[in-house]
């Protein structure tokens, strides 16, 4: 058989297997034998989660001669059952851009010169030792769990320095504070199984057809079977998702706050809320004098009085949602025979009232009793492969410790110090700088409060993704006292601005573990070698720690005087994992994960032993041992699903902050956005992502088919606005805010369509620095900035108009 024929047969076999599969009925099994059978002799296959979004699809990765040559959707994976999206089926090519970083580089004047790894590690150690509290680490939800854990331990357990924060602060911090302040614990109680059981999906500023295509496909698959699923798209612009929706309800920016209040008002006013659920499972809360997670107690009567002002007329004024749509949605929530799933992502989280709107949507579901059954509840989605696993669970946030512990809590610090075997008092009690504050202080001179002098960035691209980069990123690049270290795989905008560049291994060039949006932890093994002298991020962290250890930094020793990342062989002899030649003598991921796992049981986020994840296509925590096997949890707080729920309780919010097993329904008011259009800047500007590109495009813009499909950024304009400006499709305009301006071609009635008076610009294109224009104002509780709404103006660029 010719090779091409063989490959076609292989492709067809994968398609037939996926097509024939009953919809998301998981039969499990450690290996996808159908893939193995069609391997051929020269391709070795193994599982790995996709490198891109937070869905957590499993792919089978085909390797020949040390190179990834094929990917196949893993039909045994419960998340995607063999399906892959446009980015997912190109994920293997992300490794092979021609400009991979392969050697450490140090800035000398205007250029970067090659240096050795040892020299690079010395440079970092010098910077830390020169000013320990002025050092910070900035990571991401793309850190694997062991990488994030190593960084977390290095900073908080080694340097006694809490200035570590991730880019996930920019994408889902408001979801965290929403969950914690409502349920007493972070992350969704539910899971993707809801997609197979729900009757109606409310998309709150959410575009899963482009951002989470496999999840959206899971819904569409039900429609191909003739099942009825009502899709309601609540948003400020029409998207690819809208074309599949039964109803598109346009909302004004920030209008979600009024909409949620308006719906609850109608339910309470008409007596159609779920009295039994509310009485049995909830308490009421309102914000105190200072914005925080706890607020102060409130009564149902206060709640009712608060809602009274959210009449359909006022809600229409604030949110743009017409009274008939509001009533229709209220009728939907009043009908408990239907199961309703609310989904959201950045639209609700990148919001100066992000915590408040998260609380309101949780409250709406609990008030109406749409909670606790499969397909019936609120669920936030994440955009990065381990925003949940690494950031929210390992706790790589400036205020957090692993497993849901907090640095400000003395008992929690003691627990962490015990597990890390470091002396009491090693962990500093004050939270470090959150993302915006960290970069603000890095951008300001030391004489003006700029107490951060060195930032080590791993696995993210802040030069392109921070808000208001002209203020939060660029000034430090003109300050000779500030030093930027960047570990990455490609020469991103951040890499080019760095003082020290460290080449990293990516995806299947290293071992890894990640956690997706439904609490599912996944594992994979290294399959190919990284190029040149690129190395694992966890190794980089451990190697710097060793440099400091060798120079006598006390924090790099545990309570017994051993190296902070001490690993011994079976005879007790230390394995020098800081030496890359010996890094793979032992599975460092396993060692780090097993230590981290000890944290997970403290707050009932139990994880299974590492080897269970080797066998599984991910497991959703809490994972508890029962009858000799490890059982995952689909629905937390639900009797029969979650083993932590006491018998007879039905639903038990056992992590409640008040220790009363109840969740909180919050009183939250509509608050106007911090910047609104005016005569000078008359448009709303919203930013976001597109199907083809993942985040800042550093990987997907190097994949030729994806780049060809979406080669450049653009500004979506309404046709009437374009006509008024005298510009046509493709003309170049200057989009400006009070913070900066860029030139972009106009796109009218394209894939997305904005309402009149609005603009949309994606952020994947590093040549179009849209985050020079965005607002750094953030939610006072989550500290997450609002990239979705600010005031802008549009003018014809010089020579830009065609008419």
């Amino acid at each position: 058989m010719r090779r091409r024929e063989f490959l076609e047969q292989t492709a067809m076999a994968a398609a037939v297997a996926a097509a024939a599969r009953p919809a998301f009925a998981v039969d499990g099994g450690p290996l996808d034998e159908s893939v193995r059978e069609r391997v051929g002799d020269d391709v070795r296959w193994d599982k790995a989660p996709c490198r891109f979004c937070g869905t957590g699809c499993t792919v089978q990765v085909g390797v020949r001669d040390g190179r990834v040559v094929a990917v196949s959707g893993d039909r045994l994976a419960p998340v995607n059952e063999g399906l892959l999206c446009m980015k997912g089926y190109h994920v293997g090519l992300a490794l092979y851009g021609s400009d991979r970083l392969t050697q450490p580089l140090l800035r000398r004047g205007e250029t970067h010169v090659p240096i050795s790894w040892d020299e690079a590690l010395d440079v970092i150690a010098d910077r830390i030792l020169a000013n320990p509290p002025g050092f910070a680490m900035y990571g991401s939800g793309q850190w694997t769990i062991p990488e994030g854990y190593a960084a977390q331990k290095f900073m908080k357990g080694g340097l006694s320095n809490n200035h570590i924060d991730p880019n996930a602060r920019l994408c889902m911090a408001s979801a965290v504070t929403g969950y914690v302040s409502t349920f007493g614990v972070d992350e969704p109680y539910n899971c993707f199984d809801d997609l197979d059981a729900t009757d109606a999906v409310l998309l709150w500023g959410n575009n899963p057809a482009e951002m989470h295509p496999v999840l959206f496909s899971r819904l569409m698959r039900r429609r191909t079977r003739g099942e009825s699923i009502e899709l309601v798209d609540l948003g400020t612009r029409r998207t690819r998702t809208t074309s599949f929706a039964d109803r598109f309800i346009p909302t004004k920016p920030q209008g979600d706050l009024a909409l949620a209040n308006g719906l609850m008002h109608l339910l309470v006013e008409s007596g159609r809320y779920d009295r039994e659920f509310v009485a049995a499972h909830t308490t009421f809360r309102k914000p105190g004098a200072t914005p925080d997670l706890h607020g102060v107690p409130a009564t149902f009567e206060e709640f009712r009085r608060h809602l009274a002002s959210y009449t359909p007329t006022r809600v229409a004024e604030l949110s743009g949602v017409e009274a008939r749509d509001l009533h229709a949605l209220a009728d939907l929530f009043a009908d408990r025979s239907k199961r309703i799933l609310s989904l959201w992502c950045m639209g609700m989280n990148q919001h100066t009232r992000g915590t408040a709107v998260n609380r309101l949507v949780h409250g709406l579901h609990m008030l109406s009793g749409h909670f606790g059954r499969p397909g019936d509840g609120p669920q936030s989605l994440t955009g990065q492969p381990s925003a949940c696993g690494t950031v929210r669970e390992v706790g790589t946030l400036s205020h957090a410790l692993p497993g849901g512990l907090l640095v400000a809590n003395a008992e929690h610090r003691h627990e962490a110090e015990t597990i890390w075997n470091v002396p009491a008092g090693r962990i500093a009690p004050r939270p470090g700088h959150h993302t915006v504050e960290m970069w603000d202080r890095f951008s300001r001179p030391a004489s003006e409060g700029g107490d951060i002098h060195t930032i080590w960035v791993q696995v993210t691209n802040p030069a392109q993704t921070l808000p208001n980069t002209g203020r939060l990123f660029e000034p430090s690049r003109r300050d000779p006292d500030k030093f930027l270290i960047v570990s990455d795989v490609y020469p991103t905008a951040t890499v080019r601005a760095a003082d020290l560049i460290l080449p990293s291994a990516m995806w299947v060039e290293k071992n890894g573990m990640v956690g997706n949006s439904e609490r599912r932890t996944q594992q994979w093994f290294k399959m190919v070698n990284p190029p040149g002298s690129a190395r694992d991020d966890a190794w980089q962290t451990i190697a710097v720690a060793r440099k400091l250890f060798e120079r006598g930094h006390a924090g790099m020793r545990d309570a017994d005087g051993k190296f902070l990342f001490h690993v011994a062989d079976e005879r007790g002899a230390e394995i020098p994992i800081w030496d890359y030649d010996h890094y793979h003598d032992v599975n460092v991921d396993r060692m780090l994960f097993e230590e981290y796992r000890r944290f997970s049981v403290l707050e009932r986020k139990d994880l299974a032993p590492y080897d269970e994840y080797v066998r599984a296509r991910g497991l959703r925590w809490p994972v508890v041992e029962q009858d000799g096997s490890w059982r995952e949890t689909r629905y937390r707080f639900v009797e029969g699903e979650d083993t932590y729920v006491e018998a007879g309780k039905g639903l038990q919010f056992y992590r409640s902050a008040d220790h009363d097993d109840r969740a909180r329904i919050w009183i939250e008011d509509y608050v106007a956005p911090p910047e609104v259009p005016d005569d000078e800047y008359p448009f709303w500007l919203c930013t976001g992502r597109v199907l083809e590109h993942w985040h800042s495009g550093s990987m997907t813009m190097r994949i030729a088919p994806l780049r060809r499909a979406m080669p450049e950024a653009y500004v979506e304009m309404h046709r009437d606005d374009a006509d008024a400006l005298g510009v046509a499709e493709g003309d170049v305009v200057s989009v400006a805010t009070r913070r900066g301006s860029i030139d972009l071609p106009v796109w009218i009635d394209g894939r997305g369509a904005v309402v009149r008076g609005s603009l949309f610009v994606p952020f994947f294109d590093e040549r179009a620095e849209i985050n020079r224009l965005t607002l750094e104002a953030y939610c006072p509780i989550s500290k997450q900035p609002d990239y979705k709404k600010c005031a802008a103006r549009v003018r014809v660029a010089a020579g830009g108009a065609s008419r």
Partner: protein
Amino acid sequence: MPILGLVIGISPDASLDEVTARLARTGGVRCGEAAGSRLPATLVRDDAAALDDALRALADERGVLVVDVVFHEFSDVHVAPRELAMPRDRSRRDATS
């Protein structure tokens, strides 16, 4: 020569036979036996760009609700050079206007 394995979801209000016949007439497409409304297929093209175009065209076919990729062989797909020869052209937008 890149190859895709696909599962094509057929709209419940479309005729599976008609859609299958129409897709099978498309060059480079080979259809397997449908499982309910889910049609397995392969798609082969000379290069990645043509493959991408063909995939989009399939998704736009009448009667097709959704196209999922389940397999991708790309061993001879060239990786993107540092800067692709893609000026800020407007061909994509022209095509949609």
